[in-house]
């Protein structure tokens, strides 16, 4: 398994853990508090910290396990990265337009503020999953 596959798996795991926890917490708040009274901003901003820490620690560990392959990248890696970004880009586009449509309906800002990061997280997950599948299945 190449560094790039391990990297994609690590990022998928980190995103799923951090933002899975974030959206679970916020969804629970939503069941007991009206959306326009929820103070979500501090948690939304702070959530990026564990994501960065997990990403850095996992990539350092992967690189230490096989230093020779840590910075190895070639034409196939670049092609797979581009295809992953393209698929993830479609998901992000749908999410951004979803947020736009939602904004026109003028709901509490809470919903718009969560549609966009949700779209970003889903786009990243789809991008990483696409890369993993392309590495295993072939391009």
């Amino acid at each position, binding site marked *: *398994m*190449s560094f790039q596959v391990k990297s994609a798996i690590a990022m998928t795991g980190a995103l799923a853990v951090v933002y899975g926890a974030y959206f679970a917490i916020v969804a629970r708040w939503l069941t007991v508090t009206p959306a326009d009274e929820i103070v979500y901003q501090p948690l939304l901003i702070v959530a990026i910290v564990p994501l960065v820490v997990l990403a850095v620690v996992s990539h350092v560990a992967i690189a230490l396990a096989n230093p020779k*392959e840590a910075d*190895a*990248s*070639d*034409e*196939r*890696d670049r092609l797979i990265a581009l295809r992953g970004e393209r698929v993830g880009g479609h998901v992000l586009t749908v999410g951004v337009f979803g947020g736009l449509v939602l904004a026109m309906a003028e709901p509490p800002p809470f919903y718009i503020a969560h549609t966009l990061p949700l779209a970003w997280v889903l786009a990243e997950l789809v991008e990483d999953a696409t890369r993993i599948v392309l*590495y295993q*299945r*072939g*391009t």
Partner: protein
Amino acid sequence: MAKPTRVTNQIRALRFSAGQMTQGELADRIGVTRQTLNAIEQGKYSPSLEVAFKIARVFAVPLEQVFQYP
């Protein structure tokens, strides 16, 4: 499930006829990762023309002796 390309190749046979050259050795000589060379050998990735020529040059054979297209 693998999605093979229509391009086939004789890289594995050429490696063995060249003193049992390993995938890693050939990968280093043509400037790709061992995983990419493995994907090329298995028909899971069609390399660029540049990489294809580099492989042929390592074995000192014409390109069509390395890669075949139906």
